[in-house]
């Protein structure tokens, strides 16, 4: 162990190079797959057959609407979860009494795995958009609420004294001091909640067969179109990469503005 730790490129060019070299195994895998896989293999169809498979049998017009559907359910769910999570997080963060009163209920609700709630929700709420959003919110709200609560509690007491001694009004204290101070914690919660929300969105779509990329994958699987399944997996992966990096860069920006580096 005579080398230094993580290979951090000094220049952005170095880091970009690293990102590219890091892709080597994946590229090799795809090439090997392409060579040994045949387009009609029931299990491992060659990658070159994936893209065309999206458009065979008169399909293809359904891809873009599916992506839009998935993105809408996911982002609506995440936004609602953020609003609800931050509100509850602040309420239980500032008042120990509220926390004691609702704490056990939250612990109980949080322990229920959202994935297992999906079949229940389809029975109770039916197969429609609001049901999907409810399930996504139920899954995504906890990390946001818990991080907000922790964030509120870890605000330096000096900062609160400062607000009081400047005689800031309650509204101004929340708007100018509490909310901005808790933003990094909220975004950390959102970052954790993002993949959860996406997975639950896809799971609901897959189980109910109602719209979205998840429904398309399920359909492709049930009608034995493996190439189409793989193509849709790639699409889901791309959606995930995009939303994750969006959230991450938002978090980065807020952190930098707050002058904090710590995780």
């Amino acid at each position: 162990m005579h080398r230094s730790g993580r290979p951090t490129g000094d220049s952005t060019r170095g880091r970009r190079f690293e990102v590219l070299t890091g892709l080597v195994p994946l590229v090799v895998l795809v090439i090997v797959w392409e060579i040994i896989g045949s387009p009609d293999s029931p299990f491992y169809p060659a990658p070159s057959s994936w893209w065309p498979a999206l458009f065979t049998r008169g399909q293809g017009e359904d891809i873009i609407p599916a992506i839009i559907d998935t993105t809408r359910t996911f982002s609506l769910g995440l936004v609602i979860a953020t609003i609800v999570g931050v509100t509850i997080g602040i309420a239980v963060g500032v008042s120990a009494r509220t926390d004691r009163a609702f704490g056990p209920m939250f612990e109980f609700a949080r322990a229920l795995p959202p994935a297992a709630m999906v079949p229940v929700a389809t029975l109770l709420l039916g197969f429609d958009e609001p049901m999907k959003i409810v399930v996504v919110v139920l899954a995504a709200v906890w990390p946001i609420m818990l991080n907000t609560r922790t964030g509120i509690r870890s605000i330096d007491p000096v900062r609160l004294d400062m607000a009081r001694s400047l005689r800031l009004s309650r509204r101004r204290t929340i708007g100018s001091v509490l909310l901005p101070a808790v933003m990094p914690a909220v975004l950390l919660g959102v970052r954790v909640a993002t993949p959860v929300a996406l997975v639950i969105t896809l799971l609901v779509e897959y189980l109910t067969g109602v719209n979205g990329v998840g429904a398309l994958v399920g359909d492709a699987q049930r009608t034995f179109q493996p190439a189409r399944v793989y193509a849709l997996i790639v699409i889901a992966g791309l959606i995930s990469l995009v939303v994750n990096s969006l959230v991450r860069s938002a978090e980065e920006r807020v952190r930098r503005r707050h002058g904090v580096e710590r995780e």
Partner: protein
Amino acid sequence: MSFECRSVRADVGAVGANRTVLDDVSLDVASGEFVSIMGRSGVGKTTLLRVLAGLQEPSAGSTVRFEGRPVDGPPDGVSLVFQDYTSALLPWRTVAANVELPLEGHLSKPERSERVAATLEMVGLADRANDRPPQLSGGMQQRVQLARALASRPAALLMDEPFGALDALTKSDLEDELLALVAETSTTVVFVTHDIDEAVYLSDRVVVLGGEPAGIAADVVVDCPRPRTQIRTRESAEFLAARSRVHEVIFGTR
């Protein structure tokens, strides 16, 4: 009279697990006076300052008045400067926006910008108005806090070890700037510090807390003429006399 305290008693700690730190503290601070509060760490200097600032309620039977009105909550016309500038300043706001914070909702936008610019000019930070606090040195950040405290034109300034975290050279600069500022604005100052030289150099009176729970162990008048200068004042007989007196009260005659 700026502050009047009569038999102030104060506890710290959670209800049930509290400890009385101050007992029977009576103290008057005249308008325009500069009073330092000294004592060993943990003696209750900060508690006394928090009581004056209206951040902590003293026990029943205590009387605390500012300009004749009882203190219940942070009084109008009093500003507090904290030692920990990283927490007291908001890193997501620019220097100017930090100074503007107490004025929001009280003054119109143009009045605020004018006041902020003038106050930053006073502390010599006019050119850093659009930076964020973390980009500034410790001394500069403490100047920003001072500017924010002065922006509302307070009659009294409470300062809790404001220069305690700064290096000696910066500290001595800021001491002189503070003296110039309060002389110009004739602001009353109550200043908590654990640096005897600093207390004597800045103050008209040095109040030493002692005992457990603490009361006033000594009230030392510093007879040095103003304006004071780092070299001449610190060499004067009056300075040395006051300094020895405070030292004696805190450490005994060793």
